[in-house]
């Protein structure tokens, strides 16, 4: 390999290692998020707490769009991705109930 090719291969290796670490962060983050949503469900049922206030959903979506824009991430993708995760919470809860 030429010097430039060797250098490129090193950079590529570095990116791949970063991606692997970021994947690990994503997996742990999701695990942590599900733990909290589960705890929220239990708290609500035990203490007779009402669903989130009406303004919360709208604020959450606006915040997400803003965050995505700042992070140079397609806001539509961010919305879809989070929807997918939240729907998983609903399905998980349903399976827990039945």
């Amino acid at each position, binding site marked *: 390999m030429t010097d430039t090719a060797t250098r490129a291969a090193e950079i590529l290796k570095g990116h791949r290692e970063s991606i692997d670490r970021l994947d690990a962060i994503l997996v742990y983050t999701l695990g942590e998020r599900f733990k909290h*949503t589960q705890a*929220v469900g239990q708290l609500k049922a035990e203490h007779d707490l009402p*669903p989130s206030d009406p303004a919360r959903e709208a604020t959450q979506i606006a915040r997400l769009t803003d965050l995505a824009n700042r992070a140079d991430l397609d806001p539509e993708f961010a919305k879809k991705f989070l*929807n997918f995760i*939240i729907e998983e*919470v609903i399905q998980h809860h349903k399976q827990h109930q039945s």
Partner: protein
Amino acid sequence: MTPAPTLTTARLVLRGPQKRDLAAFTAWMTQSARMEAVGGKGTERDAWRGFIAGIGHWQWHGYGFFTVTERKSGVAAGRVGVINHIEWPQPEMAWHMFDGFEGRSYAFEAACAVREWAGRTLGLEPLISLIAPTNTRSLALATRLGAVEERRDVVDGEDCIVFRHLNYDDARAVRQAAGAIA
């Protein structure tokens, strides 16, 4: 008695109507001031007919009014579901809370679960709600659910505002459902 599934939310269990619900339903129909918003109070005989019609509705359409019960007490708190009577323009999400069970966001919580089920499981298009222009509590609930006024109509001889609900997989609906169900 009906093919209704059981939907569980944070504080409620929604199930098909059962014989033991007739008393609470009759009390609501014959005594509740809220009946003014849905055509006026009825007699015990009206309640009986309405109740068995509700069971028939489930058999006919595969959907109908769930009896909303408190998870903790098992007590019937109202009815929320999808109805589509013969003169109805489209399937409607409707809610009736019995006396003493208002003001706790129960109808909102149940409606989130019903919207999710109607869209995801039944595959229905976004539901409508037919609400009398004077029924301020229901108008507020429809708005809280993110439904928007589509048009005015006369259904079953009554003036009403036709609201269109969010699709079940709309970002806001999904968040509301997660907050209500989980």
